[in-house]
């Protein structure tokens, strides 16, 4: 299912959870791990002077600095690197979201794994407003997995995947990814629609009707695509979508949440505020995969 996994990491502890998942998966699938580190955001001139992504300090990227960073990464992930057959370290400078996308394209990665907070240090945002994650999730051709908490980093014996749908076009791709993951790992799949009643005044009957309609819609849309796969339930809960998704994941002890990203907001600052996906990532106790394109699922 995955031949190449791109792990985007600053090397900071906040990305260790992501690293663990990436390497665990690589081991499981015999995949290659490409460890990408964007050393800094160029300030001026020819990208050799950058703001270090961890310290925010201005540094000069030369051979010496490169090999230092490479050594650091090798030491940090030493044990994990040993567990997989293929891995390599890629170092670059630039705007992180761009470089992650560029690398994913160049390497033809099947999955991008990143820590949610790795891309949001003040340096990343200085002058280039917007969240790395939002930008990557929006434009990536392959699924993007975010591991926000260290505890969320267990990708091992799987029991349940929650697929949250809003019935968008992108959700179809997300569904395909969820289904093949569930098949591959032989676990249960929960198909969830969270009916958004936030800020609406609906009476109980109306809500009931909509819940029934959503349930039917899930059945009509996804069940025919499942073939002989039987380990699934359908759930429709009303509330604020991100809250319901996180609640469901907890109830099912899910190890993975899969959802679609299809925010069209150009201004990443605004996208952040309105994004269900981002809220889920921040609150969920397990990794979250966002899918926005049909290419790699």
């Amino acid at each position, binding site marked *: 299912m995955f031949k190449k996994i791109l792990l985007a990491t600053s090397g900071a502890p906040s990305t260790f959870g992501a690293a663990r998942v990436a390497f665990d998966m690589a081991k499981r699938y015999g995949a290659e791990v490409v460890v990408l580190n964007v050393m800094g955001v160029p300030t001026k001139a020819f990208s050799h002077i950058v703001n270090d992504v961890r310290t925010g300090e201005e540094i000069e990227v030369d*051979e010496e600095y490169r090999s230092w960073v490479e050594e650091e990464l090798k030491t940090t992930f030493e044990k994990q690197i040993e567990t997989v057959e293929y891995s390599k370290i890629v170092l670059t400078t630039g705007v992180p979201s761009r470089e992650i996308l560029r690398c994913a394209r160049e390497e033809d990665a099947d999955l991008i794994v990143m820590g949610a907070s790795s891309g949001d240090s003040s340096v990343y945002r200085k002058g280039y407003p917007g969240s790395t994650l939002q930008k990557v999730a929006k434009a990536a051709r392959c699924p993007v997995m975010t591991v926000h908490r260290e505890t969320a980093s267990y990708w091992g014996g799987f029991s349940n995947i929650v697929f949250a749908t809003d019935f968008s076009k992108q959700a179809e791709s997300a569904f395909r990814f969820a289904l093949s993951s569930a098949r591959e790992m032989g676990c249960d799949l929960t198909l969830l629609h969270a009916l958004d009643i936030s800020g609406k005044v609906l009476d109980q009957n109306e809500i009931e009707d909509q819940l029934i309609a959503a349930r039917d819609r899930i059945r009509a849309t996804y069940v025919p695509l499942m073939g002989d796969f039987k380990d699934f339930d359908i759930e429709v809960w009303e509330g604020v979508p991100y809250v319901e998704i996180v609640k469901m994941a907890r109830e099912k002890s899910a190890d993975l949440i899969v959802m679609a990203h299809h925010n069209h907001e150009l201004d990443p600052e605004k996208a952040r505020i309105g994004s269900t996906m981002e809220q889920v990532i921040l609150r969920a106790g397990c990794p979250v995969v966002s899918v926005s394109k049909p290419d790699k699922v």
Partner: protein
Amino acid sequence: MPEGKFCNKTPITTDEQLKATLNDKGGKQYYEEMNHLEVDSEKLWGTIQKTMKSRLKTWLEICAHCGLCAEPCFLYQVNGRVPEQVPSYKIQATLGQIVKKKGKVDNAFMQMCMETAWSKCTCCNRCGHYCPHGIDMGVMFSYLRGLLYGQGFVPWELKIGAGMHRVYRAQMDVTTEDWVETCEWMAEENEDEWPGLEIPVDKVGADIMYTCNAREPKHYPEDLAEAAILFHVAGENWTVPSEGWEQTSLSMFAGDWECCKDNVANVYAAIERLKPKRATGTECGHAHRATVIEGPYWMGREDGQPPVPFLHYVEWLAEALREGKIKIDPSKRIKEPVTLQDSCNYVRNQGLKDVTREIISYLVEPGYFVEMAPCKEHNYCCGGGGGFNGIGKYREQRNMALRKKMDQILDTGCKLVIAPCHNCWDAIRDLEEEYEIGIRWTFLKPLVIKMMEVPEHLLPKDE
């Protein structure tokens, strides 16, 4: 030591040299070597005799030392109005002396000249507007920079910058393959939201050919995507060349005349190859100056024009808005005080002041646009022009230079600055970083994309 390993009279022409020079941290060895660099007085005087045109000679001679150029120079203003910052003094004490001494000057003198040429003048040409004799230090200093470059007395970053242009024909290591690949990438990345979006490479006979700044494919390819989206919405028949796409010229700021000519020749060759009806470039100001204003002269074109009409991006955009090819949704117009940074490079050098204000009239709700004082052709340099932004050695002086713009912006009371020129944009970003006055800044493209009405037939089908 007559010539150093890094600091010498030879331009960088290979990738190895380039990398080696870059690896010299902060130019430490480079500047150390500069202390021992020998001045080739004979060559210096020879160059002057061959290249110093009568205009410059006359200027040096007729300067009345009246000092009227002092106050117009923003560097004079922000540096305590010391005599050393009076434009006429700056040029007389440097170029004037070299000429007077027929090139017989020493290393220390050349280093002083370097410091003056790159940290006391941004070639913004403002002083020239106020001199009763029309003497323009921007032009004089450009010339002096050329002389200094020829002798190896040039800031480390600009030596590298010119080297980049020589090796990659771009100010950054972006190869033809990288560039073409980036065009494909950006078209692909945006095709879902913009069905039919294309970035056509090497289309012959298009209505307009687009060139850009190498920083875009390198770090901000979304700028290219945004250009494509706007051309797409405007229904423009356009193309980008696979070679000759890089329009900037750090070599112009380095004083590498030979390389300047090569840059422009490259763009003009693309025009001749693809035969577009017109050309336009990105929002960058100095790129336009190099390709359109100075370029024709470097190329020895008698009409002083590029091979086809070459618009600055603000001209193309104003036209598209004027002709209704791009329509702004009135409800999305800017409704907060907003000001505009006039780029010296296309406002003072090419008079594009009205056209930028025409754009403002479409984008900003009446009553919200606040002019800087002074503005238009009288506007001050952002503080980082002429290569100043990129030179580490003179960072302190550059930060001081930003103060003029900071005061101008603060006086407008605006929190939002529209800065089409890339370099001005950088300077304003740095100014916020340095002084934290709480402002935001933007290019035109993302602004227009956010505000425009998208015709029904260009929207994605099923959403």
